């Protein structure tokens, strides 16, 4: 890294925005992957609706919501580097690894957040909606999505280099994601149970710090993966 030490050079910001636009355009034009993920989400929720109908307490609602989000996230984000296979040589000459990982982190965060909101809507239609305190629930959802998307982006970059990608994604990803998952499931169960901010702020702040650890590690370690 021989680049000058400056926090946000304008040129880098422009490059990151360009890369995000490119990801968005690729997904928009191909349509197949996005439609696949949406159908995956809808059919998983519908299957669990058939299975769980009739005995759904808010704890089960909560656990089901997060587990489905977890599986959709791992399927959706695993493509973020795998689709770059043929382009990666060009990036190697054009982009700094830091810009690339920046754009991937932001794009997969937005992508996962959209999936989460959509999943919330489908859940509301099929299962009903036990949420009382919307603002806290959404804050926790955003923090959880941030952790999930950034950890899976990093794992996707790692498994991009291996021979059996889809298996590696799950094997490497699940143990690593457990802190984020436990905290966000626990928080959101407490929020649904009617806890207020002062009762859960400790766990929320822990979740924020785990997110920060994940993102910091990703920034430090990604250039080493990319260089090889």
């Amino acid at each position, binding site marked *: 890294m021989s680049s000058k030490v400056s926090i946000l050079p304008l040129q880098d910001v422009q490059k990151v925005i360009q890369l995000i636009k490119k990801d968005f355009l690729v997904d928009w034009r191909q349509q197949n992957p996005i439609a696949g993920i949406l159908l995956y989400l809808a059919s998983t929720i519908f299957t669990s609706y058939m299975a769980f109908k009739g005995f759904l307490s808010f704890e089960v609602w909560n656990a089901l919501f997060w587990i489905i989000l977890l599986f959709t996230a791992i399927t959706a984000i695993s493509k973020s580097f795998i689709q770059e296979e043929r382009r990666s040589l060009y990036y190697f000459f054009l982009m700094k690894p830091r810009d690339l990982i920046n754009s991937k982190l932001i794009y997969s965060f937005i992508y996962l957040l959209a999936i989460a909101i959509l999943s919330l809507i489908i859940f509301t239609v099929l299962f009903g909606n036990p949420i009382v305190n919307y603002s806290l629930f959404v804050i926790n959802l955003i923090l959880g999505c941030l952790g999930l998307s950034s950890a899976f982006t990093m794992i996707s970059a790692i498994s991009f280099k291996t021979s059996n990608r889809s298996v590696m994604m799950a094997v490497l990803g699940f143990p690593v994601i457990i802190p984020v998952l436990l905290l966000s499931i626990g928080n959101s169960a407490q929020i649904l149970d009617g806890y207020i901010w002062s009762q859960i702020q400790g766990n929320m702040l822990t979740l924020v710090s785990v997110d920060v650890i994940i993102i910091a590690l990703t920034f430090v370690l990604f250039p080493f993966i990319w260089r*090889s």
Partner: protein
Amino acid sequence: MGYLLKTNWWKWLCVVLLAYTVVGGLLLPVPKLPILNETIRVLHFHVPMWFGMILVFSGSVIYAIKYLKSNNTMFDVYSSQLANLGVAFGVLGIVTGMVWAKYTWGEAWSNDPKQNASAISLLIYLAYFILRNSIKDEQQRNRISAVYNIFAFFLMIPLLFILPRMADSLHPGNGGNPGFNAYDLDSNLRKVFYTAVVGWALLGYWIASINIRLSVTQEKIENAS
């Protein structure tokens, strides 16, 4: 590390300490306590395994960082062999813990946060070995497994602190249960326990050094042929 490899007094020390641990740990008097009774002897065989595991995994991560800095293949050998040994320690720790839990908690696996945390740490490092085996190119394998090693280790540490907050544990020293200090009135346990920690750590170091030399030699043979 270099000095210990050339001498062998510490190997004799290790044998003596472990002989004392096994004989003393099984035969010396222990405090008579309800529920625990004689099972308290597992202290000398269970707790040092976790000390050893955390120590060895930390060593593995330090060598992974050194590898990324220098690209020296020796550091990768150190790192992967230490992780190997850490998994062995972890499995022994889980098995001894489960045997103990069977007699004191009533079942071998009771969804205790301590048990879950140890299972997850093992999952992480088993995944590390699968990752190593699924990359063909050697340099790439070393670098990517070092990256995963660092990434997973620094997420395992918060996990060890987060899990106990989410649920109460029955484990001694957690959730209001006293640790062994409270039981150990006449310091008999302590004498054996500290001996055991040093003895098992030395044994681990011994095994690791043999494994490291073995894999270095294998690599040399492969390169020569």
